[in-house]
């Protein structure tokens, strides 16, 4: 077939009808404060690992709310559990604890 140099790229539109919230609901059942995030970005701004690894608690929570569990799991690998994010969160979310809980869920699923 003749190559005209065109290709079809997939739509980037998120279909919120198809989002699987199983992980989010599981997380909220053990870490109810996960619902409280207001996406202010303080956690990501202060994170020592973020600039090098892409770790962002805000984005992890958002990804899980959008059913993007794999992306969230990949991001979590950058965390070094220093707990700085917990110190700055204005909503008082224990983000470090939340990260550990999330890792535990991922760990259980990997078994």
């Amino acid at each position: 077939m003749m190559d005209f140099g065109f290709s079809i790229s997939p739509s980037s539109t998120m279909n919120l009808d198809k989002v699987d919230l199983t992980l989010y609901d599981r997380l909220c059942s053990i870490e109810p404060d996960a619902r409280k995030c207001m996406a202010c970005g303080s956690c990501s701004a202060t994170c020592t690992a973020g600039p090098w690894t892409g770790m962002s608690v805000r984005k992890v929570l958002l990804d899980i709310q959008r059913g993007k569990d794999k992306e969230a799991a990949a991001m979590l690998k950058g965390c070094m559990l220093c707990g700085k994010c917990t110190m700055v969160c204005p909503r008082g979310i224990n983000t470090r604890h939340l990260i550990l809980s999330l890792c535990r869920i991922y760990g259980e699923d990997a078994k």
Partner: protein
Amino acid sequence: MKDNIVIVGGGIAGMEAARQLLLLGYKPILVEKSDHLGGHVADWHCLFPDMTPAQDVVKGLVEQIKDANIFLETEVSFINRMKMGYNVMFSNGVNVICKAILLATGFDLFEASRKEEYGYGIYDQVMTNRDLERWFNTGDDKRITGKDIKKIGFVHCVGSRDVKAGNQQCSKVCCITAIKQAMEMKERFPDAEVYCFYMDLRLFGKKYEDFYIKAQMESGVHFIRGRVSEVSENMQGQVIIKTEDTLSGKPAKITLDLLVLMAGIVCNKQAVQTASMVQVQTDSDGFLKSKDNILNIIETGSKGVFLAGTATGAKTIPETAAEARAAALAIHNYLVAQS
């Protein structure tokens, strides 16, 4: 005291001002164009932040202003300036000479059908904040009654912060109203998913942020940051909305069983006409113009003419009531200085 005072508008501002003037020993004349007192609040069901029944607030005020001269279904036909005050002619034929006029003319709710892309009046399952309050009050609305409602969306800023709609200003109360109504719907439809589509959440008032956290924690309302750009209808009669999930940086779409538009607060066009009879102009935002916007919101450039409530811009009920009290005092001081 025999000084006549005319209050135009029988909403919260007009009623609270009348109440205070009665306490000060005056007998104000209150005119209201509709057939009942209470203004927009009379159409509401419960009020944030304590879910006070709107009827209690309205009834409480009506009860306390019985001694005022109240004309319902009456409008101001014309006002003539005289040496010592004003000659006001009402549509019911009554003519009054008064020394002070209070314009408590309130606001208009933005006509949601003007934002055609949201489909109000076009698609079956689109309603406004006011329609939803009416349903809370009456339990009767064909968009909800007997329907299987699984997904509900609330669109913030409909006709507010929108140059294309002719209203640049924020309506202040819609963010908190949306959250209130989202939680009320979640209570009535516990299995439904409820979404709020917002640009900013402007939760400035007492206990409003608590409401937000409660909506997140207890009601599980989903907050999606992005302005809804368009709405369409599918074969099942549901609505599909398009927005950007700006936090993800990606366009998003979702199918809903019910869409509620947070129609904003815009200036009352009829009030602008009445105000022009006493040379009160409109400010750059289209609302009535105060003497200045810091310490003299209640006074106007015209002697003996005062303002209170949403005639000068979007306001909450406590703010409106506080202004009405201030206006009553300003009128009293004005009359004392005159005599």
